[in-house]
C-alpha cells in the first residue's frame, strides 16, 4: 500500500510542478533559516561545556552596595579565592585570574601586542579542562615568572623550536620562562587564553598586603564544588563569611558587597548585568529572540503548505472519493496524506541543507563563528522533518480525508463557494502576515534605535579624534610631545588622560571633607586641554587653566549628574570642597569644584550617565587624544607615527579613531538588527510565496465569474480590485493584531537602553504600507492576468 501512496504522491508532485515548487521553496527557505538560527543558538549555548567539570564550576561574583545603589561586578578581591577554600570544605578548589590587558610580548627582535594575557593560580588545571601538550600541569604555574603559552603563541614566537625553558619578555620588563604549552581552547570558551603567568609573579606587581585585601576587586575567581552539591547551600553561608572577612575593610569605605555564584555554563550568556568583566559575552536576549524568529518562520512555511495543499484539494477530491468508495477508512487516508507531506518536507529539508551549506561561509563571517553542518545533525534533522511534515500535513490530511464520496464523485466538493478563501485559510494567512508585520516593525525599531544611538549628541565631538596609548618616553615628555604635534597644521589639539569616552572609565571614590565615607564615582585624570579637545561644554564655573597654577593640585570639575547626586545645584557646586585619596599613597588631595561640565556619554547608551569627577593629576595618563582636521588624514596619521617613533622607539605604532571605537559598542545590536531584518524579509518572502500560490488558485477558481463579469461590461481595473479586495482585508486585519504585539515586544527590548527612541506611528505606518504593497504586488500579478484574459476562453473552460 505504501508503494501505491508513494507513487501517487510523486506523480502528483510532478504533475503540479508550479505548486510543488512554491511549496518546496517556501519550506526549504523556512527550514534553512531555522537551521541557521539553530546552529547559531546551539553554538551560543555550547559555551564552556567542554570542561569535564563544567557542571560543578562556579564563578564568584559580587553585588556592590553603596548608598542604596547596587552594581554587579564580575571581579572579586584577591583574598576571596583562598579564603573560600579555607573556610568551606565543600569548596574543593579555587582559581583566580588577573588580566594584564594588552601586553607587549617580546622575544629577540620579535615584538607584538597581545591580548588575553592572564596571571592565574596553578589550580586552573585542576578546575578547567585546559590540556597541556607540553609541561606538567602540577608544576607549570608554581614558580614566579613561569609562563604557559597557547599552541598558536608557541608557534608564533618559537616556530618549530621547543618552547619549554625559553623566555619571553612581557611589558618590556618581566622575563618569563615557558613552562607549558596549552592546547588551543575551543571557540566556545568565555575565557580566551594566549598566555598564563603564574600567580606567584603577582607579588612583584602588588604588595603582599594588597594581595590580602578585600577592596581591590579585579580578580576573577572560580570554584569547584563536589558532584551534586546545590550551590544555594554555599551561597546561604556567604553573608556571614563576608561579614567576617570583607565588611571590616569595606565598611570604612562606605560600601559592602553581597557575594553569589554564577554557574560556569551561564557565564557567557547571562552576564549582561555584570560590570568589569573581561570574558567574552553573548546575549541571552538575542538567543531567545532568534529562537522565536526561527519558530515564526517555520510556522509561516507550514501555514503556506497547509493553505496551498487544501486550496488545491479539488485535484485530489476524486481520488479521495474513489478510495473511500472502494473501502478506504478515513484513518488510512489521513496516514496517506501525512506521509505525502512528510515526503515533501524531507525533500525541502535536503534542499534547505544545501542552502545552509551555501550560506554558512557568509553567515560565519557575519557572526564571527565557525559553524558547520555536522553529520550528527542528520538524526535531528530527520526528526524535525517528521515533526514539520506532521504539523504542516495535519490540517490538509484532516481536510482532504473528510470529503464525502458522493459529493466529490459528482464533482461538487473541494470547491469553496464563490472562489474565496475558507475561514481557516483566512486565519492562516492573517497569522502569517501578523508575524511578518511584527518582524518588519521589530527590525525597523532596531534600526531606528541604532541610528539614534549613533547620531545622538553625546556631549562631545566624537569625529576626527585619534587616540594613542602612552608608551615609551611619551609619558615623561608629554608637553613636549604635544607641542611637537601641534606644530603640524593637520592637528587641532591634543590631550592626555586616564579615562576616555567609550574606553577606560576608571571607577574610584571621593570623600566629603572630614568624612571617612567614600562616595563611589568615576574619576578621570586629565590635563588642561581635555575639555577643549573633546569639545565638551561647561554648565557652570570654568575649565582647568594654566593661568591658575593651583588647579594642578586643588581643582575638580564635576559632571551635572555628580553635582545633582551630591545635592547641589550647578551654581552651588562651584566652590564646594571635596577630597580624593591619592592612589597608592597615604595622601589626600583636598580641593574645590571649579566647574561643572555638561553630562556626556562616556559609556554606551545602554547605561545612564553616572557621576563623574575630573581633575589634573600628572603622570598617570593612559592615552593621548588628538583632534585632527578632516583634510589629509593620511598625512596627519603619518605625522603621528613619526612622533610616536621618536618618543616611543621600539614600540609598534598603535592608534584608533574614537568614532569607530564608539560604534563598536553597538556592534552586537547592529548585527542582531541586520540579521533580524534579513530574517524578517525572508519571512515576508515566504508568506508572499504562499499568497502567490493562493491567489493563483483563487483567480483560477473564479475564471468563470470573471468571464461573466467581463461579458456584462466589467473593466479590467474593477476585476483587479475585486481580486485584491480580500487580500487587502486580510493584511489590514493582520496589521491590527500586529501593532500591539510589536509595540510591547519592542518596548521591552528598548528598555535595555538608558537612552532610547519612542516607537513612532511612522514605523507602524511604514510596516503596514510595506506589507500591503508587497501583498498587492503578489496578488496583483495574478489579478491582472485574470482581468486581461479572454472572457470567451474563460467561459468555454468551465
Amino acid at each position, binding site marked *: 500500500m505504501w508503494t*501505491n501512496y508513494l*507513487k501517487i504522491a510523486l506523480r*502528483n508532485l510532478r504533475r503540479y510542478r508550479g505548486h510543488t515548487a512554491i511549496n518546496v521553496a517556501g519550506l526549504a527557505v523556512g527550514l534553512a533559516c531555522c537551521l541557521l538560527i539553530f546552529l547559531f543558538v546551539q553554538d551560543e549555548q555550547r559555551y564552556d561545556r567542554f570542561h569535564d567539570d563544567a557542571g560543578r564550576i562556579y564563578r564568584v561574583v559580587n553585588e556592590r552596595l553603596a548608598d542604596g545603589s547596587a552594581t554587579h561586578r564580575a571581579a572579586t578581591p584577591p583574598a576571596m579565592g583562598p579564603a573560600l577554600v579555607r573556610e568551606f570544605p565543600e569548596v574543593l578548589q579555587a582559581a583566580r585570574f588577573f588580566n594584564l590587558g594588552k601586553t607587549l610580548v617580546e622575544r629577540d627582535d620579535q615584538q607584538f601586542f597581545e591580548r588575553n594575557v592572564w596571571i592565574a593560580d596553578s589550580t586552573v588545571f585542576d578546575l578547567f579542562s585546559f590540556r597541556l601538550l607540553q609541561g606538567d600541569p602540577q608544576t607549570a604555574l608554581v614558580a614566579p615568572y613561569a609562563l604557559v603559552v597557547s599552541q598558536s603563541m608557541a608557534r608564533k614566537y618559537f616556530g618549530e623550536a621547543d618552547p619549554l625553558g625559553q623566555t619571553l619578555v612581557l611589558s618590556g620588563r618581566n622575563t618569563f620562562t615557558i613552562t607549558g604549552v596549552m592546547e588551543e581552547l575551543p571557540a566556545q570558551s568565555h575565557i580566551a587564553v594566549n598566555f598564563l603567568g603564574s600567580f606567584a609573579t603577582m607579588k612583584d606587581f602588588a604588595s603582599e598586603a594588597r594581595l590580602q585585601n578585600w577592596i581591590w576587586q579585579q580578580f576573577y575567581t572560580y570554584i569547584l564544588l563536589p558532584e551534586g552539591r546545590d550551590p544555594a547551600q554555599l551561597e546561604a553561608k556567604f553573608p556571614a563569611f563576608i561579614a567576617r572577612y570583607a565588611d571590616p575593610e569595606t565598611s570604612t569605605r562606605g560600601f559592602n558587597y553581597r557575594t553569589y555564584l554564577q554557574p560556569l555554563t551561564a557565564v557567557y550568556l547571562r552576564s549582561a548585568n555584570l560590570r568589569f568583566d573581561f570574558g567574552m559575552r553573548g546575549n541571552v536576549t538575542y538567543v531567545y529572540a532568534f529562537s522565536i524568529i526561527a519558530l515564526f518562520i517555520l510556522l509561516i512555511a507550514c501555514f503556506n503548505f497547509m493553505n496551498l495543499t487544501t486550496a488545491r484539494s479539488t485535484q485530489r477530491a476524486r481520488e479521495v472519493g*474513489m478510495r473511500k468508495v*472502494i*473501502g*478506504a477508512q*478515513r484513518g488510512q487516508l489521513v496516514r496517506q496524506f501525512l506521509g505525502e507531506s512528510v515526503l515533501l518536507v524531507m525533500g525541502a529539508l535536503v534542499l534547505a541543507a544545501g542552502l545552509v551549506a551555501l550560506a554558512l561561509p557568509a553567515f560565519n563571517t557575519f557572526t564571527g563563528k565557525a559553524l558547520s553542518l555536522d553529520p550528527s545533525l542528520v538524526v535531528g534533522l530527520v526528526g524535525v522533518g517528521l515533526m514539520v511534515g506532521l504539523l504542516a500535513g495535519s490540517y490538509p490530511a484532516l481536510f482532504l480525508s473528510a470529503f464525502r464520496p458522493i459529493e466529490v464523485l459528482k*464533482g461538487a466538493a473541494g470547491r469553496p463557494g464563490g472562489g474565496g478563501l475558507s475561514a481557516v485559510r483566512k486565519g492562516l494567512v492573517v497569522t502569517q502576515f501578523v508575524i511578518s508585520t511584527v518582524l518588519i516593525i521589530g527590525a525597523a525599531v532596531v534600526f531606528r534605535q541604532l541610528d539614534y544611538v549613533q547620531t545622538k549628541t553625546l556631549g562631545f565631538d566624537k569625529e576626527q579624534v585619534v587616540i594613542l596609548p602612552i608608551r615609551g618616553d611619551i609619558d615623561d615628555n608629554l608637553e613636549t610631545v604635544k607641542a611637537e604635534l601641534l606644530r603640524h597644521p593637520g592637528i587641532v589639539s591634543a590631550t592626555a588622560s586616564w579615562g576616555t569616552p567609550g574606553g577606560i572609565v576608571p571607577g574610584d571614590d571621593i570623600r566629603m571633607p572630614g568624612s571617612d565615607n567614600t562616595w563611589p564615582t568615576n574619576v578621570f585624570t586629565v590635563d588642561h586641554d581635555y575639555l577643549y579637545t573633546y569639545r565638551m561644554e561647561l554648565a557652570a564655573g570654568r575649565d582647568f587653566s594654566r593661568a591658575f597654577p593651583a588647579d594642578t593640585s586643588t581643582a575638580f570639575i564635576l559632571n551635572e549628574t555628580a553635582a545633582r547626586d551630591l545635592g547641589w545645584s550647578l551654581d552651588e557646586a562651584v566652590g564646594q570642597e571635596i577630597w580624593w585619596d591619592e592612589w597608592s599613597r597615604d595622601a589626600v588631595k583636598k580641593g574645590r569644584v571649579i566647574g561643572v561640565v555638561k553630562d556626556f556619554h562616556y559609556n554606551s547608551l545602554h547605561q545612564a550617565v553616572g557621576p563623574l569627577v575630573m581633575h589634573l593629576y600628572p603622570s598617570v595618563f593612559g592615552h593621548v587624544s588628538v583632534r585632527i582636521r578632516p583634510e589629509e588624514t593620511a598625512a596627519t596619521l603619518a605625522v603621528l607615527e613619526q612622533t610616536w617613533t621618536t618618543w616611543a622607539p621600539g614600540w609598534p605604532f598603535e592608534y584608533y579613531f574614537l568614532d569607530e571605537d564608539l560604534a563598536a559598542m553597538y556592534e552586537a545590536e547592529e548585527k542582531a538588527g541586520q540579521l533580524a531584518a534579513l530574517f524578517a524579509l525572508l519571512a515576508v518572502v515566504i508568506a508572499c510565496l504562499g499568497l502567490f500560490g493562493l491567489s493563483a488558485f483563487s483567480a483560477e477558481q473564479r475564471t468563470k465569474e470573471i468571464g461573466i463579469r467581463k461579458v456584462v461590461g466589467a473593466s479590467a481595473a474593477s476585476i483587479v480590485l475585486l481580486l485584491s479586495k480580500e487580500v487587502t482585508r486580510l493584511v489590514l486585519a493582520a496589521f491590527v493584531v500586529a501593532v500591539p504585539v510589536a509595540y510591547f515586544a519592542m518596548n521591552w527590548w528598548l528598555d535595555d537602553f538608558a537612552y532610547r527612541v519612542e516607537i513612532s506611528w511612522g514605523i507602524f505606518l511604514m510596516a503596514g504600507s510595506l506589507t500591503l504593497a508587497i501583498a498587492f504586488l503578489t496578488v496583483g500579478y495574478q489579478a491582472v492576468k485574470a482581468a486581461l484574459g479572454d472572457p470567451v476562453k474563460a467561459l468555454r473552460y468551465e
Partner: protein
Amino acid sequence: MIKADHLKKVYRTDEVETTALNNVNLEIEAGEFVSVMGPSGCGKSTLLNILGLLDNPSGGTYNFLGHDVAGYSERQRAQFRKGNIGFVFQSFNLIDELTVYENVELPLLYLGMASAERVRRVEETLERVNIMHRKDHFPQQLSGGQQQRVAVARAVVASPKLILADEPTGNLDSTNGEEVMQLLTEMNEAGAAIVMVTHSPADAEYSHRIIHLFDGHIVTENFLERKYAHA
C-alpha cells in the same frame, strides 16, 4: 440478498426540505440484474447511493446479506463496502495519477491481499475486459470506452456480490456503450448482482427487471423475459 423496506431519504438545507426517496420497497436477489429508470431528480442516484452504502437512509430498513445496515456508521459502511460492492460511474472516476493496472489493483490493496494473488487477479480481470495491452497506460491516454472498461475491471476485481452502475454508458458513444453493457452482462452471468441507473431504454433491455422511479416513489416494475442464471 438485498431487502429494503419503506426507505426514505430527506435532504434538508436551512430553507428547503427535499424528499428524494419516499417509501421505497425493494428486494434484489443474488445474481439479479436490475435497471432503475426515471426522469432527472426522481431519486435514482439517491437510491443507488443508499444501496451502495455510500449514504444512510433517513427512514426505513435496509438489509444487505443478512445485515441490518441502515444505521451503520461511516466506518462500518466503508468496511462493509470493501470487497462486497463494486461501483461503476458515468464519469469513470479513474485516478489520473495511477496506471490502468494500478487503478484496478487499488481495491485489492485495501483488502490487504498478498502481492502474488493481486497480480493474478488484476491480470485476469484486465484480460476479461480486454484491456491488458494498455495496463501501463494512464487514464488520459485511453478512449472513453477503454476508460470505462478499466472502471468495470476495478469494480469487479475483488469479486463483489453487488455491482452498482450509475449511467455507465452516459459518456460513451453507442459502440463503446454496447461493449460496456456486454461486459456488465458477462459479470452478471458470472454471478454478481447488478443495479444500474440508466436513461437508455436500450441499456435497460440487458437487465432482468426495470424499476421506474418518479418523485421518489417506485411507480412501475417490469420483469423482462431474460432470466438470470442463478434464479
